[in-house]
């Protein structure tokens, strides 16, 4: 599965296909959480697909991204194999990370995917470092840091805005403002605004409709072009919404931080429907079928992949092969 073609996001069909792939992947994953094939649950990306797809449509294969706890969409849109991502979620040896990372750490360094991340905000300085390295090497690669509205209040992210700005690095900060950090409304947590903050660091910042793939793509293209030409970082705030709970765990809880009306309001703005509306007549069904087939194959691959051998539980703990002392001495 390693020599597969990278997904083509250059045209609207390709982008719709990816939106649909992410949506279908998450639905498949939700089922596997329920069945127990995925342990620990996931943070579903459903509803936010336009951001990952719109941004990645403006990137090149050698560009790099850092992602979040809610990372499947970014990882897929940047080109990761759905079967290997799903195998990772299932903790199998065929997974992107050999089953060692799981949902929150899915990475494919060969595709410039420097990892989902379990710590809010942690990806931002990593993207800054990748951008710095590219700039020093004279390459015109950019780095994208995806993060949520919650991350706007993380010190390391704010420090990263300054580093990127003061060094004029080719970084794109993409804030996916889905209105909530878990149960906390952004309105009561984020003073000022995301774009206002970025502007305070001297970073050009725009707000984009995060339910509109094309709007996201266009804004990203502008920012990325400027960054490649040495114009420094940019900040995109994508107003979006997650249709599901924060985490699959939420399904078992009775939380009331979002009203049914609010959820319905946003569901009516489904990015998939919007993208589908732009497709040529009759194309949708074919694309859907192709995606469904790909997902079926991904599921087959993932579930056929072996569980890792517990004897290798410490494999890769050190890159130099150092074996740690075991936890019990007989």
């Amino acid at each position, binding site marked *: 599965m390693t020599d597969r073609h990278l997904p083509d996001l250059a045209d609207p069909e390709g982008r719709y296909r990816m939106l649909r792939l992410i949506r279908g992947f998450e639905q498949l994953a939700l089922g596997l959480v329920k069945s127990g094939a995925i342990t620990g649950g996931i943070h579903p990306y459903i509803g936010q697909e336009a951001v990952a797809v719109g941004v990645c449509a403006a990137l090149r294969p050698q560009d790099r991204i850092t992602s979040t706890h809610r990372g499947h969409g970014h990882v897929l849109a940047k080109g990761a194999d759905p079967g290997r991502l799903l195998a990772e979620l299932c903790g199998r040896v065929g997974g992107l990370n050999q089953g060692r990372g799981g949902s*929150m750490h899915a990475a494919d360094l060969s595709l410039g995917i420097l990892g989902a991340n379990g710590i809010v905000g942690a990806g931002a300085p990593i993207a800054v470092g990748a951008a710095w390295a590219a700039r020093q090497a004279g390459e015109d690669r950019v780095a994208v840091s995806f993060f949520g509205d919650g991350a706007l209040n993380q010190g390391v992210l704010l420090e990263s805005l300054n580093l990127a700005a003061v060094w004029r690095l080719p970084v794109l900060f993409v804030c996916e403002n889905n209105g909530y950090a*878990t149960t*906390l409304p952004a309105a*009561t947590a984020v003073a000022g605004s995301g774009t206002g903050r970025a502007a305070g660091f001297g970073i050009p910042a725009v707000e984009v409709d995060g339910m509109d793939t094309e709007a996201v793509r266009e804004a990203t293209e502008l920012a990325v072009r400027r960054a490649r030409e040495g114009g420094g970082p940019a900040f995109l705030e994508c107003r979006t919404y997650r249709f599901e709970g924060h985490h699959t765990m939420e399904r078992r809880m009775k939380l009331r931080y979002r009203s049914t009306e609010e959820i319905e309001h946003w569901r009516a703005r489904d990015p998939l429907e919007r993208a589908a509306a732009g497709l040529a007549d009759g194309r949708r069904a074919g694309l859907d079928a192709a995606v469904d087939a790909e997902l079926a194959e991904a599921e087959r691959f993932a579930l056929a992949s072996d569980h890792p051998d517990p004897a290798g*539980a410490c494999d890769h703990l050190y890159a130099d092969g150092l074996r740690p002392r*075991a*936890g019990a001495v007989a």
Partner: protein
Amino acid sequence: MSKLSYTKALNRALGDALAEDPAVFVLGEDIGAGLAGPTLGLLDRFGPGRVVDTPLSEQAFTGMAVGAALAGRKPVIEFQIPALLFLVFEQLVNQAHKFSLMTGGQTGVPLTCLVPGSGSRDGWAGQHSDHPYSLFAHAGVKTVVPATPTDAYGLLLSAVRDPDPVVVFAPAAVLGVRENVTWELAPVPLGSARVHRPGTDVTVVAVGHLVHEALAVAEELAGEISVEVLDPRTLHPFDWAALAASLERTGRLVVIDDSNRSCGIGAEILATAAEEMRLTAPPRRITRPDGAVLPFAPALDRALQPGREQLLHAVRSVVKNPWR
């Protein structure tokens, strides 16, 4: 009274602490919704002035808690993940812990940090599965790991009343434990160990959820080996007198500790016992491996945690092997 769950015990301790002292307040992420359990219902009962939902700014709200403490309040912070303690190491260890000495005793910092769900939770992987209590014992922050619901209640209440910073770890693996409580819940002094089961051949010191594993092993070995199970409850300050008394009886020591091996509390217990106490055989410890990072796949995750089989084996071997 009937079955009390561990999480409910934490919840009750917080409620009682808030009720008894208006200086107490609780802060953290999603605590209004009671997402993690220990704060459930507290917002309705005490209002947003005492139960404070915070933005995702661990450093600032921990520093804010230090400032509120200097102004006379008694903050309790709930952290959603053990790794968040890494983010606030500066505020906790370098500020809160040091204020009393550095100000020449002008003030203490009565701050409590509660980590419900420390250690491994199946499927939460490398960044959510640490059990970093030994780091705080090393730094000198009072460190508590209750093993039972009544201890969870009593130790958390004492932690909140304490004039110094205290970190309370509530291991994920005990959150579901329930206890039949027929007596009045009461505070448990920090620094006091508890002998869960007396024995004469070997002392097993078990930390947190591993107390239950140790009790199971003791039961399994009953008749063959008489195992004393000692729960230190507080890792710093440690109840060394209780350990010494136990070793006077048994002379043999096994520690089971869910932190990384090197420089963990297991090391400390073995070292102090070897230096100062009666040992008739080499001591043993069961821990995570050195520098462990828990892999995601459940079987790998479990393979790195201390377990019953290893403990059984260690207890048997300690009884067989005197000093060479």
